[in-house]
């Protein structure tokens, strides 16, 4: 291309200034962030981080409009944190954000685990992995429990093959898909140490903190709300106590444990209502969860020594 004369060069250059605020509004991101604030309790550092990433991408886009060279940003991420801290939910939001900003074309999320990527015999892994990558093209590939891909104890494990294909795609097809790796912090750390290629290709490491007790209580109440239940004032106090006890027991999975506990409380509520025979039930009876529904939990029974209760809860969590 020959150097254009000044006049056409000026015409090609868009306005003198870019209004980032208007850009932000136009991209539809405020909606997503509002939704995030409304639907997800706590996680302040994560939300901050997401806003930072969104800001970076917006600025990148603005720079592009001025013809300032920017390499395609590396968007691969790793989400580390304990179970039930909202990694998958956030990955969905991330896909939406990247889609709004135009960094992925479709904005769908494909969730996979080791099973979907790694084959069972020689020559099985590559087609399987490629199939998944094909499905994820134009969207976000979310690899749950990514550390399972790498099994150091078995040198003939096919996981290595999947890892190599993934690394290649993460490097060469950066505009086709974004990979998010998720898993427990300590195991992911070991995974990254064993596969330095991954660490260098992942731009954003986001660590999910555990929820505090009030946050868990709020999560529980929101979950109940979506199912059209509510806690009676006394049940709320008891549930707060329950959370405090449950948190110290093994196999605590944050939001997921709360959901399980509430599911069991609903079960007890149902059987309580069923056994009670003093006339017809009102809407209130059907929606309110009473303190006794929660107090019947084994977490309270086992609390003095923390032995019997934790065993039972552990089994529940595992099943």
């Amino acid at each position, binding site marked *: 291309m020959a150097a254009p004369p000044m006049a056409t060069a000026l015409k090609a250059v868009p306005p003198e200034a870019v209004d980032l605020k208007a850009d932000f509004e136009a991209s539809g991101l405020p909606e997503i962030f509002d939704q995030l604030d409304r639907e997800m309790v706590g996680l302040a550092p994560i939300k901050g981080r997401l806003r930072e990433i969104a800001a970076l991408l917006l600025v990148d886009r603005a720079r592009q409009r001025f013809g300032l060279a920017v390499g395609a940003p590396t968007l691969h991420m790793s989400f580390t944190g304990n179970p039930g801290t909202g990694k998958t939910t956030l990955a969905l939001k991330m896909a939406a954000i990247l889609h709004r900003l135009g960094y992925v*074309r479709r904005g769908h999320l494909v969730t996979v685990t080791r099973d979907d990527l790694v084959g069972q015999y020689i020559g099985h892994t590559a087609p399987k992995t490629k199939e998944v990558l094909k499905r994820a*093209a134009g*969207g976000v590939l979310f690899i749950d429990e990514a550390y399972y891909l790498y099994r150091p104890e078995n040198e003939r494990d096919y996981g290595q093959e999947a890892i190599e294909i993934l690394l290649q795609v993460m490097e060469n097809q950066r505009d*086709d898909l974004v990979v998010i790796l998720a898993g427990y912090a300590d195991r992911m750390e070991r995974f990254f140490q064993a596969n330095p290629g991954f660490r260098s290709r992942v731009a954003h490491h986001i660590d999910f903190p555990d929820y505090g007790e009030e946050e868990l209580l709020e999560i529980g109440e929101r979950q109940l709300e979506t199912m059209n239940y509510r806690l009676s004032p006394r049940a709320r106090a008891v549930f707060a106590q329950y959370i405090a006890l449950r948190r110290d027991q093994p196999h605590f999975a944050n939001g997921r444990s709360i959901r399980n506990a509430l599911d069991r409380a609903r079960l007890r509520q149902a059987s309580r209502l069923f056994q009670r025979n003093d006339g017809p039930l009102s809407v209130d009876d059907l929606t309110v969860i009473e303190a006794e529904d929660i107090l019947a939990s084994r977490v309270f029974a086992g609390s003095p020594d923390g032995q019997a209760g934790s065993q039972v809860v552990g089994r529940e969590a595992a099943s």
Partner: protein
Amino acid sequence: MRLTQGTFSFLPDLTDEQITAQVQYCIDQGWAVNIEFTDDPHPRNTYWDMWGLPMFDIRDAAGVMGELASCRKIYGDRYIRISGFDASHGWESVRLSFIVNRPANEPGFALERQESDGRRILYSTRAYAAQLPEGERYS
């Protein structure tokens, strides 16, 4: 002789960008996208070999284009076409089909006349390429 068949037979060969756009259209319509190849150019040859399975769970054309690239790598010397199959009730048939790859040299067809009973003449076309066994025709 340049072989033409399918939806865009009247146009010059599509570029990869145009192919991507067409594939994306198929995907957006909910059609399963297929890649087929053959080295028998006869217009009545409906039995093309399939490259892999029909791709019905793909959201973005990039996945199909990746498959097309690997098909071209192996069968780049044959005809390759992409078709979109509409599985919805009432259609259940191919809605779109176009050639995306052709051999460098296309020798064309011979017209054969066969004298039959009386003064009747039977005509048939025969691809010059098809005189060689399958797999050796264009390489």
